[in-house]
């Protein structure tokens, strides 16, 4: 009985990611992008026929390797990767990215909006964020390793830090760009402070904040993978580290290809979300038409 209810409940949940994936794929497959990919593959093919396979394996080998390794890559288990396949490691990395982006975005957006509205808060937070924004993010990595060890927490904190700074800057700029006339008009119509935040500040800043989120998301993938190079036991970064140790160029390129594909699909989904949520804004919504 419990299993029945469980599957019934799970069913509608599965539909959404699948549909999102389909939208992402559709957007990723537009003709110009495809043409770019074909050119890229041809150049790659040409170069690989001249160079040795250790330096540049041919694209079809890499794709074939990705196909087999995705579900089962026994060689990885020799090097101490917990799950010997790309699928589980990708999931681990994706989970960290999602957690970090969610937390970082929440902190960054709230801090940015609050600091745009209250000059006292701005005076306090701005210097910190501006400085943090100019520091190369990986400089913080050693400290995080000292504080949180080599586990998951370090990598996630690094990405949270990065996402927070980016979204703070975007949210703050978005809020200061909103013309004061809207708030004045709303106040003469009888809007309360809470209504001004919910009905004006948030919708007015959504397009720019989503733009920032898209940039943060793209960076977060790379940063998460890089921070996994620093002693994680799982994740795409760990896989890459292990394969590099074994000078397995084909495996490395297969993993990179997978990361690239995921990044493209995620970005396309984010672009689609921007279009949906900011359809009032011609500048953003026509961008992809």
């Amino acid at each position, binding site marked *: 009985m419990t299993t029945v209810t469980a599957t019934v409940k799970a069913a509608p949940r599965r539909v959404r990611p699948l549909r999102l994936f389909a939208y992402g794929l559709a957007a990723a497959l537009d003709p110009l992008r495809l043409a770019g990919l074909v050119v890229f593959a041809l150049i790659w093919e040409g170069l690989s026929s001249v160079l040795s396979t250790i330096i540049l394996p041919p694209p079809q080998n890499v794709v074939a390797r990705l196909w087999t390794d995705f579900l089962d890559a026994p060689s990885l288990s020799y090097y101490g990767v917990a799950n010997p396949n790309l699928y589980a490691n990708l999931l681990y990395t994706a989970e960290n990215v999602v957690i970090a982006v969610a937390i970082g975005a929440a902190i960054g957006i709230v801090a940015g909006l609050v600091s745009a509205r209250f000059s006292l808060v701005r005076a306090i937070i701005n210097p910190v964020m501006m400085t943090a924004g100019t520091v190369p993010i990986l400089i913080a990595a050693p400290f995080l390793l000292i504080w949180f060890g080599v586990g998951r927490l370090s990598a996630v904190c690094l990405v949270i830090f990065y996402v927070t700074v980016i979204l703070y800057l975007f949210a703050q700029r978005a809020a200061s760009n909103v013309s004061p006339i809207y708030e*004045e*008009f*709303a106040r*003469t*119509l*009888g*809007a309360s402070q809470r209504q001004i935040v919910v009905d004006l500040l948030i919708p007015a800043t959504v397009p720019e904040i989503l733009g920032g989120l898209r940039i943060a998301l793209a960076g977060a993938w790379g940063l998460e993978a890089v921070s996994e190079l620093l002693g994680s036991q799982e994740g795409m970064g760990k896989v890459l580290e292990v394969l590099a140790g074994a000078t397995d160029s084909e495996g490395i390129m297969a993993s990179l290809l997978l990361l690239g594909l995921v990044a493209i699909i995620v970005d396309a989904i984010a672009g689609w979300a921007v279009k949906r949520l*900011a359809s009032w804004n011609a500048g953003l919504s026509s961008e992809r038409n």
Partner: protein
Amino acid sequence: MSTNVAPRMIELVHVERSFRRADGTDVKAVNDVSFVIPEGEFVCLVGPSGCGKSTLLQMLAGLLEPSDGDIVVGNKPVTGPGPDRGVVFQKDSVFPWMRVIDNVEYGLKCRGVPAAERREIAWTYLKHVGLSHVERAWPRELSGGMLKRVAIATVFANGGRVLMLDEPFGALDYVTRHQLQDVLLNLWNADGAGTRRTVIFVTHDVDEALSLADRIMVFRSGNKVDDIAVKVSRPRTTDSLLLPEMVEIKRKLLHHLGLDHAAGLDAVADEAVA
């Protein structure tokens, strides 16, 4: 208490406002202005650009504090903005992220009017300003004049007893401008003289002031320099502007604006040359 005198709606007593410019100089935008406006009166403010008309409206709206003096609206001192005083701003203020109909009902929504009721009200006013065909459009899809009409519908739908309009028709073509003047007068006059709202209407256009106003106040560099009653009966037509009484007022207004000889034939000649 006589019954034919309307209660005072707006009262300004020695109101002043100065600004400090970025270069450190002080500008007196409004200088020692006092007047009383009874409920239901249609008042036009005229005066050259920069004479303080918008500043005065902002203070009445409660968005700007006077440097000195008192402002009382409906027996309450003005301490901040409120839905009892609607403002159609000189600049565009329609929210770009709400559809036209949502813009028009926004004020009602803020005050908790039930959805069906406020939609009904919003729709009525949208129809009055001739925009019912674009109720689901985004503001970016409308022209400048249409946006002004959305703002007017929004402010009227909100039901404030005092309405302030800052050069609402300045950017419109001749025909639309005259249509909207009629719309405005109809909205103002909808339920007869006893229930009229109080209107303060800023304009540069002398003829517009003459055809709309019960009373015209003239401003020059922050000072109120004249206060003229326009007693010509309504509805007024273009011919009403030719009545001797109107011509007399127009001559006075042009004199205040520094255009003494413009009322005569030489003005026509000038135009022909230009």
